[in-house]
């Protein structure tokens, strides 16, 4: 959702980068829009007359029959089953506290609602048309002035009405049941508060729930970007540290001319340079740093001549200070999607790490020479990224706004040409500082004695709502993991510290220490002046050695406004309703040419195909054919080639199928409601778009099939 995993190392790329690095979605969406356009055009060509004859009253009458049939068959009884199930499961649930209990109950209610509405819609819509053809009721419909288009739309609308009725019943139940549970839990919290010491770490949170209840819904402003640094930005640099799981990414989108230059270099056998300019800071070495240095086989060096730098950024007579460990870097070239574009070992010096060479002017850097073959590979793709990772412990590597550029020495009549990242707001796009992922987000290591890992949440244009006491409220939602050996009795809580740097005023707040409960929301207040203007950075670090905390861009969120739970529930039900309409559209489409059991199966394949292929993940990446043929240990090269080719084709077909199939994750009905976050209008908009994109072709496709179908069996 928020990040995507790169193919080989599982590197997480946070939203800003993932937006830049194209994943498969835009291609799939483009293809889906194309399919929609083609199907609509075919529908209009074939059935323009039927479009003109569309009569809302006829459609409503046809839908009314579907609705009446469902109600008189007592389909609504499934809601009673669902309610019973929710009540039983809620009573048996193992919750860690009151907030968790309410969250789980919300999840059960919405899950049950979603399950029954989609299953009911699927079964009703898949069976209706085949049954009407089988028992010949269709004879009395198509012999009336009813177009086949009206029949299809009427059926979709009819089952959409059934879904709405089911969701309405479940919505009333959910709201009522949660109000009862909320009331009971508030009473319990009040009793707990009465016995709680006044200095308890959880007192503020409980007092909040005591006054606001557990069903509050907040509208949140979250960070628009997240960077992981080793220490706060300073001296025009952002920092990462060797020995820490940190790196930065620089994104490139060469213009057509620049790609032509790279291609020419590839053709002419010319090398291309990757120029990296960084600032170094030597830090005191910890015991762990020394261990890592030994493991890396690094030793302090003698002074010596520097490797010549690129023509534009020549470093005159640089020397390596005596007695210091060499500052090494590792590079990767990543394709769109995060997979390796070039094998790391094909990048010069990468086996041992490329060496940073200090210069006299304090602008150390290094040149990575890219072979003509690599230059040709870069020319072949519209975009790529350079990943730069620090290697040497005890060294902080500082990157300015433009730390990496490509240099094509032979271009421009031998003068050379520089290729920079694309412009954003008139300046080259700055690198993103990242860290590898844990299970729930980017890992932030905890250090009680030094600052070594900071998550910087950048807020842009946030809208703080100032309370009467002059504060604004934040929530912290971190996940924690234990790491390493326990050295101290730090207890079960990770202690975090935050600074807020207001970019509008230039002021930095005092340190705010918060002890988040494990894997749970923690609320805290800050003075409104610290976030005035809405452009600020929140810098979060963990002060507990044994605790890793895992962060995402929404880990720290500004509570912009309080919303009603009822309103949020309605939005959630609306998302479920849109999903059910998509299910109905697919099921009706399948039922126009298949018997109902097969129609149900095909509908499920269409609905869950994308999810299934996504679950297969890397197994379908290029190369799977080779892997499979290797597993079979086929001796004959021809056989091996055939198996490999077949598997590759199958994997490719599955990947292609996945991108044109609907993405049910675009109907996120439960997560935000469960977490007490107001569902943004954009989520409804996206769901509506997905419904249009995938539902409309199904309706039109169903019409086209029924239009030419002989309905007399």
């Amino acid at each position, binding site marked *: 959702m928020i990040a995507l995993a790169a193919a080989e190392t599982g590197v997480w790329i946070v939203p800003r980068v993932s937006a830049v690095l194209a994943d498969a979605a835009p291609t799939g969406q483009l293809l889906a829009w194309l399919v929609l356009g083609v199907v609509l055009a075919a529908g209009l060509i074939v059935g323009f007359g039927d479009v003109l004859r569309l009569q809302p009253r006829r459609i409503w009458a046809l839908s009314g029959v579907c609705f009446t049939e469902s109600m008189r068959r007592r389909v609504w009884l499934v809601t009673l089953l669902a309610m019973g199930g929710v009540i039983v499961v809620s009573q048996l649930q193992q919750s860690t506290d009151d907030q968790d209990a309410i969250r789980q109950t919300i999840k059960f209610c919405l899950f049950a609602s979603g399950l029954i509405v989609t299953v009911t819609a699927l079964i009703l819509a898949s069976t209706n048309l085949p049954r009407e053809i089988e028992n010949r009721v269709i004879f009395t419909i*198509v012999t009336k*002035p009813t177009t086949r288009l009206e029949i299809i739309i009427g059926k979709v609308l009819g089952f959409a009405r059934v879904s709405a009725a089911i969701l309405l019943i479940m919505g009333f139940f959910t709201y009522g049941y949660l109000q009862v549970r909320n009331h009971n839990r508030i009473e319990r919290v009040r009793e707990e508060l009465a016995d709680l010491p006044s200095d308890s770490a959880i007192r503020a949170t409980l007092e909040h729930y005591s006054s606001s209840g557990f069903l509050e819904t907040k509208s949140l402003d979250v960070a628009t970007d997240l960077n992981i640094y080793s220490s706060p930005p300073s001296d025009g640099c952002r920092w990462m540290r060797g020995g820490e799981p940190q790196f930065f990414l620089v994104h490139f989108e060469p213009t057509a001319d620049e790609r032509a230059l790279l291609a020419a270099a590839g053709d002419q056998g010319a090398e291309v340079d990757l120029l990296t300019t960084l600032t170094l800071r030597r830090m005191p070495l910890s015991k762990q740093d020394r261990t890592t240095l030994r493991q890396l086989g690094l030793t302090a060096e003698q002074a010596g001549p520097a490797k010549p730098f690129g023509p534009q950024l020549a470093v005159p007579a640089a020397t390596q200070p005596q007695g210091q460990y060499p500052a090494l870097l590792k590079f990767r070239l990543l394709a769109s999607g995060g997979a390796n574009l070039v094998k790391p070992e094909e990048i010069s010096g990468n086996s041992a790490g490329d060496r940073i060479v200090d210069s006299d002017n304090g602008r150390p850097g290094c040149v990575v020479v890219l072979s003509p073959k690599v230059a040709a590979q870069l020319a072949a793709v519209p975009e790529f990224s350079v990943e730069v990772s620090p290697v040497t412990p005890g060294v902080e590597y500082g990157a300015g706004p433009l730390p990496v550029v490509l240099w094509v020495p032979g271009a421009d009549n031998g003068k050379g040409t520089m290729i920079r990242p694309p412009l954003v707001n008139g300046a080259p796009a700055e690198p993103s500082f990242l860290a590898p992922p844990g299970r729930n987000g980017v890992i932030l290591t905890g250090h009680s004695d030094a600052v070594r890992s900071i998550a910087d949440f950048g807020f842009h244009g946030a809208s703080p709502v100032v309370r009467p006491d002059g504060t604004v409220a934040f929530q912290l939602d971190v996940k924690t993991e234990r790491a390493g050996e326990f050295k101290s009795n730090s207890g079960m809580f990770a202690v975090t510290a935050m600074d807020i740097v207001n970019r509008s005023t230039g002021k930095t707040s005092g340190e705010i220490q918060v002890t988040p409960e494990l894997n749970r929301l923690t609320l805290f207040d800050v003075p409104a002046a610290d976030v005035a203007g809405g452009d600020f950075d929140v810098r979060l670090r963990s002060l507990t050695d044994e605790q890793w905390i895992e962060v995402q861009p929404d880990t720290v969120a500004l509570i912009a406004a309080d919303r009603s739970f009822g309103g949020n529930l309605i939005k959630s039900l609306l998302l479920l309703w849109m999903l059910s309409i998509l299910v109905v559209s697919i099921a009706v489409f399948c039922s126009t040419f298949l018997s109902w059991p097969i129609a149900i199966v095909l509908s499920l394949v269409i609905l869950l195909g994308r999810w299934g292929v996504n679950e297969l993940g890397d197994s379908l990446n290029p190369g799977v054919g080779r892997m499979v043929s290797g597993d079979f240990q086929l001796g004959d090269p021809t056989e091996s080639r055939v198996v490999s080719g077949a598997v590759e084709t199958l994997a490719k077909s599955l990947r292609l199928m996945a991108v044109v199939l609907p993405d049910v994750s675009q109907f996120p009905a439960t997560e935000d409601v469960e977490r007490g976050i107001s569902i943004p209008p954009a989520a409804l908009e996206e769901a509506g778009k997905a419904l249009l994109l995938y539902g409309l072709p199904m309706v039109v496709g169903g019409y086209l099939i029924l239009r030419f179908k002989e309905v007399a069996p």
Partner: protein
Amino acid sequence: MSTDDNAVQIENLTKVYKDFWGRDKVRALEGLNLTIPRGEVFGLLGPNGSGKSTTIKLLLGLIFPTAGRATILGHPAGSTAINERIGFLPEESYLYRFLNGEETLRFYGKLFKIPRRELNRRVPALLDTVGLDAKSRKRKLREYSKGMARRIGLAQALINNPDLILLYEPTTGLDPIGTREMKDLILSLKAQGKTVLLCSHLLADVQDVCDRITILYAGKMQTLGDVKDLIQVKDITLFQVNGINDEKIAEMQRFLSQMGGGEATVTHPTTTLEDLFMRIIREKSGNGAAPRP
């Protein structure tokens, strides 16, 4: 006769049913040519598998012809626009069994865009016409007897006041009273200038109401003409005489024999069982009207 004067015009209509692989399976109808003028009650007869159903389905657009064409009231058969002027009673009442009689008619009325006020007037009137009382019309169709199902089926076929009515086995499942009412209704429709295409196995019913018939066999038309002409036995003459005794009858037989007429047969005329049934029921019901179901 111009095309516009014809309710149905069929030219070289052919239907071949294919199997899954597109190979010919059954030639259900072959080169049918037929014209039915407006205002006529026309009977489509034939044994099972003769092509009657296929013809009706082709006229209604339920299936598509392999060759040939058919027009209804001057428009291509199966077009949505012409369905506004057609009423169809299928062989069984293929209706929504979860609706009641009144809801059924309202539903089909809405498909014809009949205004609500007009529907409020037309639905009870039609239910009266087909003989469904106030209690029956509120019952679900799944609870209807076969006869009641035929009646509501007929009502839905007439909801739009059609110009052409296709009736498939309209009297099947009806008791003699219902059968008589159905036949009366067909004749009344004819009197209103409507065209009725009747498809039935009950030849007596066809004979009673149809102006012309055609008989299909093996997908081909075998005969076509006026009912009276087709069933008339022209070399036999029938005399009907009232109030003479056996002696005089014997004398007449001798006389006819002398006239060269061959052996003369003497019988007493019988009424039909239907007439007998109707008379008894009327007498028993006391008011002279046939009781309704």
